[in-house]
């Protein structure tokens, strides 16, 4: 017990990492479920429906399948790098989530450590970019070590695409940094030049409004950076078999899969922090009824699941839906308790915004055709980079102009 009181930072960090790892791995699994359901409904079909109630156990089934499949390694592959590449990709994707604040640093554990951010550093944004820039190696090394034509070409194209769009990604963010004046995530959200407060009393001061061009450039560069449609030629099935992960099977393939979704989540978290106000609520703080929004939304979900439980025909699905109803209802009732309701506001709004951006990602995937590789590269270098640079120059000019006029 003395250890716990003498090392507050370490103990709090271990607890936060354990909880966050659990939540992120579950979120990754259910993001695949969400993607399949959303794409299916856009295409007028049901999606996974049989495996659990409404397909809710599909991620579990997929995970078990990946675990038990035979792990085939091509005989001429470079063993060390072949095994290292998926670990590198997944671990970097998960490391980036450690820097992200899910709620205000005011909410703390009893020993004074902030509850909603694993590591709160002053130069957080810079280190996040450092982690994403190392992520290129997972793809390049996977392509090389498989020792096959499709994999090498896919790996080279994929990594060239990633480093090209990384430049535009970084430059489109600098406009926000000029407005806020700091690299710290808490300053970007809540600081003196941050996103707290309202214009005209009802428009929140989120950076998406003054920096709309930057936001659009960021979203486009982010979709290209994470190799999603419409920018996923290097790993499309009809083009290059499967690109850099052609020769991977079983759990290593699952790791690449999870790494792609982890990158998606990281990039969405960064978009909400920089442009959509992070964990701030869009409603003014004086509207105290918004404290009950998390519990109300959970109770609505419980009611929907209860209705489905009653109208469901199959016994086992009815049981599963009953469990979900109880969980959602229990969560809703817990969130009615005032200290928890006040504390859960930050993560609730953060999660809602991330889900909105992920829905946009999945919507893009279901709707758009993909770019050809030369179109992709010329788009990145000849259109997106000049637009980001122009955004930066104009933002800098607008900030400096009043100072120039007054001498």
């Amino acid at each position, binding site marked *: 017990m003395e250890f716990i009181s003498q090392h507050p930072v370490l103990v709090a960090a271990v607890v936060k990492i354990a909880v966050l790892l659990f939540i992120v791995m579950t979120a990754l699994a259910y993001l695949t479920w969400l993607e399949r359901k959303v794409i299916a409904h856009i295409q007028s079909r049901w999606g996974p429906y049989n495996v659990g109630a409404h397909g809710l156990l599909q991620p579990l089934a997929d995970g078990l399948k990946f675990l038990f499949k035979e792990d085939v390694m091509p005989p001429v592959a470079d063993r060390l790098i072949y095994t290292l590449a998926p670990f590198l990709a997944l671990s970097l994707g998960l490391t980036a989530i450690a820097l992200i604040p899910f709620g205000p640093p005011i909410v703390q554990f009893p020993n004074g450590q902030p509850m909603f951010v694993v590591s709160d550093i002053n*130069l957080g944004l810079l280190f996040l970019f*450092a982690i994403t820039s190392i992520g290129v190696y997972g793809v*390049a090394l996977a392509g*090389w070590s498989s020792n096959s034509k499709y994999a090498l070409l896919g790996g*080279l194209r994929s990594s*060239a695409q990633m*480093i090209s769009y990384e430049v535009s990604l970084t430059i489109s963010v600098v406009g926000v940094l000029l407005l806020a004046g*700091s*690299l710290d995530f808490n300053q970007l959200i809540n600081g003196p030049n941050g996103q707290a407060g309202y214009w005209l009393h009802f428009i929140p001061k989120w950076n998406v409004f003054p920096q709309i061009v930057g936001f659009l450039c960021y979203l486009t560069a982010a979709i290209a950076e994470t190799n999603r449609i419409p920018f996923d030629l290097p790993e499309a099935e009809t083009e290059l078999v499967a690109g850099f992960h052609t020769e991977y099977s079983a759990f290593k393939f699952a790791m690449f899969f999870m790494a792609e979704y982890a990158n998606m989540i990281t990039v969405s978290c960064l978009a909400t922090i920089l442009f959509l106000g992070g964990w701030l609520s869009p409603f003014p703080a004086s509207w105290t009824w918004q404290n009950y929004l998390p519990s109300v939304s959970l109770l609505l979900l419980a009611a929907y699941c209860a209705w489905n439980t009653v109208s469901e025909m199959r016994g086992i699905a009815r049981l599963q839906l009953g469990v979900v109803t109880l969980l959602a209802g229990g969560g809703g009732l817990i969130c009615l308790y005032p200290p928890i309701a006040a504390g859960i506001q930050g993560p609730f709004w953060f999660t809602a915004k991330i889900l909105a951006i992920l829905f946009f990602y999945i919507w893009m995937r279901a709707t758009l055709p993909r770019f050809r590789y030369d179109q992709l590269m010329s788009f990145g270098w000849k259109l997106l980079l000049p637009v980001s640079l122009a955004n930066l120059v104009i933002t800098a000019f607008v900030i400096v102009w009043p100072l120039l006029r007054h001498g």
Partner: protein
Amino acid sequence: MNIAIIMFFACALLSVAGAMLLILAREPIHSALALILVMMAVAVLYLLLGAPFIAAVQIIVYAGAIMVLFVFVIMLLNAGVEERTDFSRIAKFGGVPLGFLLLLEIAHSLYHSPVGKAIANGAGSSNDAADTAKLSEMLFRQYLFPFEATSILILIAILGALVLARKES
């Protein structure tokens, strides 16, 4: 035995191990990976010396862009196993001990020099954001001319690489 000394020894061992792997590896791709390991260890050493901005710049630019360039070139040229030539006996049995002796002498003189006696305070003892702000002010005021000159240098390097890589049409 506080945490700074442990971290220093861990990173020092990693960087020396990476440098040895660079020398001893048989394929260039393994040497490239060893060099990336060295750069990451050196970035953590920069953090221990209280320079977080330079650590981040090292990872973003050096380990995340320059080494990617090296890895691309190795992949494109399909650089395979290196040929080994036999060194002369003098180089192996005379040169290595002499080199080691030289290293010991340099280490001894550095260890007892006056600047060597200063203690490096660990990272986090100063305000990182304020240091970064001061660093950027120095870059844009005192060192503005070298800053602009290096941007022209990068432009020249891009043009040079484009000209060299263009196919004869």
